[in-house]
């Protein structure tokens, strides 16, 4: 049974489908339950319930003209559209829309690499180009550029960037929307617009100077609903010659504060790529005594954590540093990092990791040659798409809450304590404890991860997970930590937490939405932005 969008009759929906078939070909309009299976969010905590967000149909256009035709038909029948590129947004809603009954606009068939330049280091791609596609394109042509890839590699530069996804190489490239440069979108009225230098007919620098002239609305399309993006440019990392790793440990819990400051410097000075923090004491969590200490109400006392580290003969913290560039520069940068940190923090130690020329061999990609336990995702660190990350997925998947926090040791300790206490009531693994390490995925901020698993066969568990997610969003916001990205079912809650000036930002977005998309047909609700006819 087709799910209908709000206020659209079955007869009108059928008429729209007939027009869509005429516009893009009957083979590319999907409406049976079987055909719509791929457009469900298999990680959904509300799977198979009334609330599950399900597509009413899906269409797969071949080109920009067909996207325009789809938008015009949707306007006629007031049917919401939900554009996806590769639709692999698992943990954040997968391919499923905000509004049930929406027609998913699946852009996978638009999969051309339109331009790639390894002298000026950019690519211009269509939405259906996956990381694997672009990687293959580069490899087959022997081009000297790297992608910064997120996990898993089946996503797309365009889809990932439009949800502000992140990767694992140098800071600038890790922030995928930040490293984008110019886009083309079909607007809600069916017109095609280009941003930045792309607005200049015959521009020669679309992928090199993102701003163009006047306001740059490109950012509106990320976590927004102002159009269907049909092309996007990305800056690419010139393939480095050499790669080197090294690990620094600090003895005392307090030393972490200075360690973070030094690593911030190394990162902002673009000396290191992703710095991977971990806490060696996490290995002790299997012991009930240590688990009780690490999750103690009000936070684990520093002296007790230091005593636990000393008793176990472990350092309090470690960070793995990664260097890219000419061999001599990698060696010099590592020597500098060691000298800088070891001379400033008594008891800090450095261990040399691996060093090798690029591209890496298959053995080096396995990341088994480090002389210490490593947490680096080697494929990602070397810009190579992979599906291997699937091994971390538990049960039927997970939902993700990734609060953004300042890059300071104090902030890490505060978030550990506050979120651990706040989520204590939920029978979940301790995502937040005194050994939770921050993720250094954004260029200039930390994140922590709360990603409880969902179980398709256990609605009670899923309801508990849902409550925990909502509480996490609320408590974090009260402490000034916002989520960076959310599944449709959590987007309203997250958006509501960005409430400065009596929700001035949300009202601004709504005004723009009403002006640009008066019929409210593009992804209503995405980013917490509801068009007038959907607002309560």
């Amino acid at each position, binding site marked *: 049974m087709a799910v209908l969008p709000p206020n659209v009759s079955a007869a009108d929906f059928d008429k729209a489908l007939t027009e869509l078939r005429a516009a893009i070909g009957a*083979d590319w309009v999907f409406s049976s339950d079987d055909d719509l*299976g791929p457009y469900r969010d298999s990680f959904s905590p509300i799977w198979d319930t009334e609330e599950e967000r399900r597509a009413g149909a899906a269409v797969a256009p071949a080109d920009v003209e067909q996207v325009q035709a789809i938008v015009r038909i949707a306007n006629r029948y007031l049917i919401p559209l939900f554009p996806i590129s590769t639709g692999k947004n698992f943990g954040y809603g997968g391919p499923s829309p905000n509004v049930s009954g929406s027609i998913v606009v699946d852009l996978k068939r638009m999969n051309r690499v339109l331009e790639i330049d390894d002298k000026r280091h950019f690519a211009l791609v269509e939405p259906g180009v996956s990381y*694997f596609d672009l990687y293959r394109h580069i490899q087959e042509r022997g081009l000297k550029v790297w992608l910064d890839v997120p996990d898993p590699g*089946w996503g797309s530069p365009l889809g990932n960037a439009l949800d502000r996804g992140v990767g694992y190489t140098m800071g600038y490239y890790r922030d995928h929307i930040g490293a984008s440069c110019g886009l083309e979108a079909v607007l809600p009225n069916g017109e095609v617009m280009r941003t930045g230098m792309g607005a200049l007919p015959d521009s020669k620098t679309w992928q090199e100077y993102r701003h163009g002239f006047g306001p740059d609305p490109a950012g509106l399309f990320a976590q927004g609903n102002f159009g269907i993006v049909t092309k996007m440019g990305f800056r690419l990392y010139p393939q480095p010659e050499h790669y080197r790793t090294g690990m620094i440990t600090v003895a005392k819990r307090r030393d972490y504060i200075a360690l973070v400051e030094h690593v911030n410097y190394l990162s902002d000075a673009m000396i290191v790529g992703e710095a991977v923090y971990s806490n060696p004491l996490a290995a002790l969590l299997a012991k009930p005594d240590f688990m009780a200490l690490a999750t103690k109400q009000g936070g684990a006392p520093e002296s007790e954590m230091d005593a636990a580290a000393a008793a176990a003969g472990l350092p309090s913290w470690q960070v793995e540093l990664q260097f890219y560039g000419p061999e001599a520069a990698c060696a010099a940068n590592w020597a500098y990092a060691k000298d800088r940190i070891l001379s400033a923090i008594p008891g800090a130690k450095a261990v040399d990791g691996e060093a090798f020329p690029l591209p890496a061999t298959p053995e080096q990609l396995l990341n088994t040659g480090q002389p210490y336990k490593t947490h680096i995702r080697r494929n990602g660190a070397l810009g190579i798409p992979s*599906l*291997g990350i*699937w091994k971390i997925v538990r049960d039927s998947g997970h939902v993700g809450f990734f609060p953004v926090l300042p890059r300071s040791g104090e902030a890490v300790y505060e978030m550990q304590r506050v979120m651990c206490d706040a989520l204590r009531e939920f029978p979940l693994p301790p995502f937040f404890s005194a050994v939770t390490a921050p993720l250094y995925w954004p260029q200039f901020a930390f994140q922590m991860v709360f990603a409880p698993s969902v179980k398709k066969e256990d609605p009670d568990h899923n309801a508990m997970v849902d409550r925990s997610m909502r509480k996490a969003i609320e408590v974090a916001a009260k402490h000034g930590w916002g989520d960076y990205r959310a599944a449709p079912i959590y987007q309203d809650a997250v958006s509501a937490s960005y409430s400065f000036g009596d929700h001035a930002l949300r009202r601004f977005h709504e005004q723009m939405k009403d002006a640009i998309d008066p019929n409210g047909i593009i992804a209503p609700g995405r980013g917490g932005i509801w068009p007038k006819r959907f607002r309560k």
Partner: protein
Amino acid sequence: MMKVNPVLANPSLNRRGLLKAGGLASAALGVSGASMSAKAWAASVPAIDLRVIDQRVWPRAADMPQGAPLHLIDGDVTHLWYDTLYQAWKKPGFVVAGVTKADALFVLEHLAWDNRYKVIERRPLLDDDGQATDAIQWVIAPAHPSVGG
């Protein structure tokens, strides 16, 4: 007792007929005992282009009889996808059968959907006592006119 699907014993049925008739997975893979399944694989050769074995659930892959090319995985399907299926699924009519854990099948099924292929059969692999294991035997085949489905 091994239960071989009778359609496979009928040489007059073509590939398409076999797929439409269903029961391919049971013929290709599904028998009452895991050890017998390997023999059933051999019988399915005319209809299957590639066999995938997840060594986490079937370490005895080395005993596999001759037949369609065999791709061994350890859960991670990256190489299977990048080196083989990426090209194979761009062309029409490719049929792949496998025995894997659910996580590997999840990833393959989503990749199949992207390419307008789909899982046409799926059932648990039985152990020698006829009990379901945590392995799944499956067949993925074209599901859209653009790929001969």
